């Protein structure tokens, strides 16, 4: 069930999609990352068939579905703010797509019950949506779509209206469905969500795909100013979280240990450190920061916010400091310097 978009273009009154091309392989968790208004929801609606492109081709499972009827695409779409039918019960919502199929009443009921249990809403089947929480509604929307066993699941900002705890619950749920083999195309404006869930990421800006790649490729080597600015974090490393003697360390791929404070359980993920949170010094000084590395200045790049100083210290770190500080410390490429940052300045995003 491979999905491929080839040069999809569509003009709207005040916005257009321009030559959007990317492909989602079977079993992938593909993230389409972009700001609001970048056209990412439009891309989903085009794939689902709600919007007909002016030009370009959509291939799904080897077939050209560009002008296929919506109902025949076998593509599931979960809308932003869920779009659960308010006048039907949870059970009726989930069973909606089973109408007119040859499945018997008993079997239908069993399937609804099954998927509802899997999503943790098995007790809510007779309730009306009006009495449900945001997280529950999002699960109903998911169940309603997943029961069709779609070849690909399209998610439009599924977590944006939820609080942090519910977000984590739902992320876990999405990962579980992905692990079971569900191909997913997920649209979001949140890079943490992209890192946490995506196996591959495409960045969309103003109706155009500006970069496609693995999370590491996109975050470490942003191809355009927009991507770099949008993502906004210069220090990004794949890392493994390990807790020893009540101290948590994140080990990067070259085994540099970074002390970290987090309530996320041990496991694989990414660490992020904002350039603004890194302190530089020329001599080893005693600070309250628990992460102190010796390194060498590789590069100094002026930036609107000051100077980006790149330091090789086992891992390549980028510090954002003022021009003034840079001159005072007399930093130059090749010189030795010390890097300090607090354990709380390190953010861990689990996979």
């Amino acid at each position: 069930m491979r999905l491929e978009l080839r040069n999809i273009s569509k003009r709207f009154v005040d916005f257009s999609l321009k030559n959007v091309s990317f492909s989602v392989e079977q079993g992938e968790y593909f993230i389409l990352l972009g700001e609001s208004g970048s056209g990412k929801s439009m891309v989903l609606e085009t794939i689902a068939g709600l919007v007909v492109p002016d030009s370009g081709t959509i291939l799904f499972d080897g077939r050209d579905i560009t002008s296929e009827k919506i109902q025949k695409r076998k593509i599931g779409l979960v809308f932003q703010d869920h779009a659960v039918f308010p006048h039907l019960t949870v059970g009726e919502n989930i069973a909606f797509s089973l109408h007119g199929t040859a499945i018997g009443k008993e079997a239908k009921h069993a399937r609804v019950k099954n998927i509802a249990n899997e999503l943790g809403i098995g007790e809510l089947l007779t309730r009306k949506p009006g009495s449900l929480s945001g997280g529950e509604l999002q699960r109903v929307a998911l169940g309603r779509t997943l029961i069709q066993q779609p070849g690909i699941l399209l998610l439009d900002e599924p977590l944006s209206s939820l609080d942090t705890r519910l977000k984590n619950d739902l992320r876990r749920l999405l990962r579980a469905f992905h692990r079971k083999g569900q191909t997913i195309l997920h649209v979001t404006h949140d890079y943490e969500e992209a890192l946490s869930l995506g196996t591959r990421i495409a960045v969309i800006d103003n109706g155009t795909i500006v970069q496609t790649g693995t999370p590491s490729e996109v975050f470490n080597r942003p191809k355009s100013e927009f991507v770099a600015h949008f993502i906004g974090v210069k220090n990004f490393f794949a890392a493994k979280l390990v807790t020893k003697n009540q101290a948590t360390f994140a080990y990067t791929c070259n085994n540099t240990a970074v002390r970290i404070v987090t309530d996320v359980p041990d496991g694989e993920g990414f660490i992020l450190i904002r350039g603004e949170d890194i302190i530089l010094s020329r001599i080893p000084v005693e600070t309250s920061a628990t992460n102190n590395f010796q390194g060498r200045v590789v590069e100094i790049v002026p930036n609107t916010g000051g100077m980006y100083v790149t330091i090789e210290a086992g891992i390549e770190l980028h510090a954002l400091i003022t021009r003034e500080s840079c001159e005072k410390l007399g930093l130059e490429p090749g010189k030795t310097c010390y890097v300090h940052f607090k354990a709380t300045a390190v953010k861990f995003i689990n996979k």
Partner: protein
Amino acid sequence: MIFLLLGSLVLLFILAPLAGMFLNTTPAQVFETAREAEVRDSIWLTLYTSLAGTLVFSVAAIPLAYLLARKKFPLKKLVTGIIDLPVVIPHSAAGIALLGFVSRESALGKMGSAVGLNFVGHPAGIAIAMAFVSIPYLINAARDGFAGVPVRLEKAALTLGASSFRVFFTISLPLAWRNILSGLILMFARGMSEFGAVIVVAYHPMITPVLIYERFGAFGLKYARPVSVLFILISLALFVLLRWLAKEKNGEMVNG
């Protein structure tokens, strides 16, 4: 304060004539009138012709309201204007226009004659006249109802494999039902109270508004009052009941 005063004056303006009429009529007179076969027949005729007109025309009016709420098409403003036309033209003139439209010489009249139906002076003609003047109320209410249904929900239903037909009947219609029902009630009420258009198309059989007019013309104010009071009471009772039923049903839909 001055607004309150002005507002009270308007209320008084509406209620005073009605109250005056009620006070000038004894319950005994109303009961007496209610026992007359002519009066009972006319009330029954008024109710069922208006109901039939409302139901028959709603079959086409509700889909039209959906199109108006959802689709963009050329001359949409003109179409909207045409729909409001029956509200603004004098109803006797509407009756004259309709008479030409349904008379034996017209195409519709000939079709009717072929199956032995003459619209002029027939309940079917009355229902058409009532529907003509009251249909804008249904279309406008239903259009507002459909416009209030989030397009997202219809799109979601489409992606869940539903045909456009099924989307309309399982999503759009139930969610707009509150407005549609109130439109139906309004159309029914407006049809029942129609006089001008009906009297031109069908003086006989007599609907109650025509009967009231005839009694007034033939016997005077005193004789027209009891039947007026009776008709108003029945109308009021009916609408209170319909509103209540509508509210019950909707309350169930939202909370149940």
